[in-house]
Structure formats: structure tokens, C-alpha cells
């Protein structure tokens, strides 16, 4: 389905995740973050860059993986994206949330 953010129209799935990363840009991400009650800071963008990079390399995302990567400690990650850091960070990053096979 389509969703309008400012001047742009993006395609999202039922839960609001972008279905096409090429439509992503920082303005869109900032707006999605606002809808989630998050005000983006440099530290937020650093995480977004990191998980987009992982996604492009088709590497699995997990909290433990993020902890090991040293980009951020986990308490801080929860503080930046309260109430489900991976779920929210992936939505803002314009990539699908981590899934299983069914």
C-alpha cells in the first residue's frame, strides 16, 4: 500500500515497513521515527547506517550481533529505540523487520 510522507509517496507493508529501500531517504526516516515517538540524533543515524549495511550484505540482524559489533551497547540501544529496538530501528532504516520462515 502507499503512504504519503511530506511530498513523497512510499510503498509500505501492512505494518508500515518500506517495501523498497530505494525509496528511502533521511527525511522519510525522520518522519517515520517521529511517528514512533523518536527524535533522530547522530547516534541514531549511526545505528541506521550499520543495520542498512548488514541488510545489504544479507547478514542476519540480532541484538547480540549488534552488541558484539561494538557500535553501541545494548542498554543504550534500548534507550534510543524504546520498546523493541530492532523492530523500530529496521522500520526507520527502511528494511524489513527480522523474520522467521513462517
Amino acid at each position, binding site marked *: 500500500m502507499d503512504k504519503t510522507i511530506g511530498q513523497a509517496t512510499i510503498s509500505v*507493508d*501492512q505494518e508500515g515497513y518500506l*517495501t*523498497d529501500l530505494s525509496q528511502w531517504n533521511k527525511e522519510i526516516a525522520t518522519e517515520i521515527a517521529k511517528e514512533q515517538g523518536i527524535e533522530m540524533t547522530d547516534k541514531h543515524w549511526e545505528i541506521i547506517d550499520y543495520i542498512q549495511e548488514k541488510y545489504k550484505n*544479507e*547478514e*542476519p540482524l*540480532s*541484538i*547480540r*550481533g549488534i552488541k*558484539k*559489533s561494538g557500535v553501541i551497547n*545494548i*542498554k543504550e*540501544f*534500548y534507550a534510543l529505540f524504546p*520498546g*523493541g529496538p*530492532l*523492530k523500530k530501528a529496521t522500520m526507520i532504516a527502511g528494511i*524489513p*523487520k*527480522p*523474520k*522467521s*520462515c*513462517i
Partner: protein
Amino acid sequence: MMSNHLVSKLPKNEWQITVVDQYKTHYYQPGFLFLPFDIYTTKQVKKKGAKFIPKGVNYINEKIELIQPDDNKVLLENGTELAYDILIIATGTKIAPEEVEGMKGPEWHKSVFDFYTYEGSKALRNKFREWEGGKLVVHITEMPIKCPVAPLEFAFLADSYFKNKGMRDKVDITFVTPLGGAFTKPKATKALHHLLTDKGIKEVTDFNIERVDYENNKIIDYAETEVPYDILVTIPTNMGDALIERSGMGDDLNFVPTNKATLQTEDHENIFAIGDATNLPASKAGSVAHFEAEILTENILRYINGEPLKEEFDGHANCFIETGGGKALLIDFNYTHEPVEGTFPFPGVGPLNLLKESRTNHMGKMAFRWVYWNMLIKGIHIPFVSATMSEKGKHFEETEA
């Protein structure tokens, strides 16, 4: 499986095939799901590996110390050096409970169990036989895991098992996952979420475990959510073999970076990888390795002849999912298509139903053990089931990105 495929295709006077396996016993790993519930016996899930090695293939029962890809050599623990022209890595995935604080502590296999190993599964069977009830927590540490639906099947089978024992009212079952739900894909969630409610299985989602507090019988996540248990059945972090790390060939989970369409490793053109040893974004399930084997065989022959490799593997997986009470589901999916409803393998006919519970599907799953021992390992093609996924007879609405 690969030696069975290749032995008949490679000229014997030019090629010599050697299989190195550190274990003497080959386990039917899907059977570990049934062992705790006394559905399978220990004997039904293991056989001697040597039985499956075809004539004309060397079989070495020895641990590998190191792969030296730049010198095209494999060093065994006993000091032997094996030189190779082509290497196929099939070292699989193992559980790593030591990755989470308190998991592999003094309570390991006493009140904290895995069912991804023969030992864990058997210990759990013995525990269940005498358990008088309480809180049973089925928990996934992090993705990816080998056979991602197994924990869910485990919860369903536990429901049946305790019902049959007449003590379901004494057992509280909770399913704990780091993902957004026990089901994560829209079609499967819609078709199957009722199974959890029908069976009275509670769901705790977005739970990212920080530690197991084995002294107070609870698991704690980074957001400080706590889930108490009497028996914790956990799927620990899954990692590739330590050999891959020692040889400097893996990613941070020791999986080998592999081309997802050709199965050639990214770093070495004469090394190929198959199954759950790879970093492929496919399901780490046995059916995937089976489908990969057909394509990998073709690509190895092409590599030998100096032809371009076939970019054919599509992530095809096909899995039976036990739902308890003698019923099962069947799912068929690949890199780009989520499991949908339909019939399999014959479009519109079946006899198996996709994404729907049925007794026929359960019979299929039970028959699969025979298929595994007698066809899969031997590299025999399963009639009507192709290595790449067929879209016929399935109810697709749209193609997922």
C-alpha cells in the same frame, strides 16, 4: 550426500573423493524433535556414518584441525595432510549455549535444556517422563537457527504430550521469541495464529535474552523483562563449526560466505559450501541442503570443465511442521516467496496441503525419516519435487520484495 551424487559422475581414473567426518555416528537431526516425547526411540535417530559412504569413496573418521585454502590443503588432528583440487564444506551448524550468560551453567540438562543435540534431547525425554508439571518455557535465543519452525513444533508437541498424559492442566506452556511473534509472515500468521490460542500456548515476543538466572529459574532480557520457568527448553545461539573460525573462513557466526545462487564460496573459487555451514539467507533446514546438492553437483561438474556456474539456487525449502495431535502442516518457500496456501507436489491435487493442518501431512513427516535414511543421504532424487521452487498450485497474491 555430495559423494553419493558425485561418485557416479566423475571418472574414477581422474578423480578421488574423500569424506572427512569427525563423528562415527550420523544422526537424523529432525528426529531430535520427537525424542523428548517418546515418539521416536534413540535407535531410530542414529546410524553409523560409514553405511552411507558409497563404494569407491575414501572415508576418514578424524577431526579436522585446519583448512588452508591458500595451499589447497586440509590438516587433520592426527597430523595427516590432505591436498585437494576441490573442497566442499558441509560442517553444519552447532548450538553455542556458552554465548549467553548462565545458560550452560550448573543447571544445563537439569532444568535448562536444548533439543538440538542428541544428549539434550535425551536428557529432556528423561526429565519429561518424571515431571509433575509447572512452567515450561520454549525459548529462541536469536536468529538464524537451524530449522526455524522446530521450536514452535516443540511447543505444539508438548501440548499434545501432556494432554495424552492427562496432565495438561498442570503444565503452563510459554513460547518466547526475539522476533515480533511466533509467526512472522503475514499469510502464516493469518492462517496459523489460532493454533497457539487453541492450544493455550502463551507468547512472549521481542524478548532478547541477556542472561539465564538459573538460581532463581528465570530468563531476563535487555529490557529487563523476566520470564520464570520450571523447565527451560532453549534454542541457544546457532553457529558454524569452530573449524571455520580457526581457518579464518567465516563471518562472525562462523558461517562461510557463499554465493547464494551458485554455492561457490566468495573467497575461493575451488571451495564450495552446502547446507547450514553457509551464510545463505535461506532456511537452515535439511531440505535446503537436499535441493542445494542437485545444483551443487551440476556446478562442480561445470567448474571442472571450465564452464560458467549455474546461478540457479533460489533458496527453496520444503518443511513439514508438526502441530500435535497427529496433524502437521507443510510449507514450501524460497528466497523471495513466503509460504502460502495451496497443494503439493501436484498443483490442485496434492495430496499434501500447504499451510494447512492435516493428517496426511503428518504421515508425510513420519515417512520422511525413511526418505532421509534411504533417499536423501544417498543423493536419490525425490520424484516430483524439484530443486527450485514451483509456483504452480499455490495461492500467491503478490510477490514479496
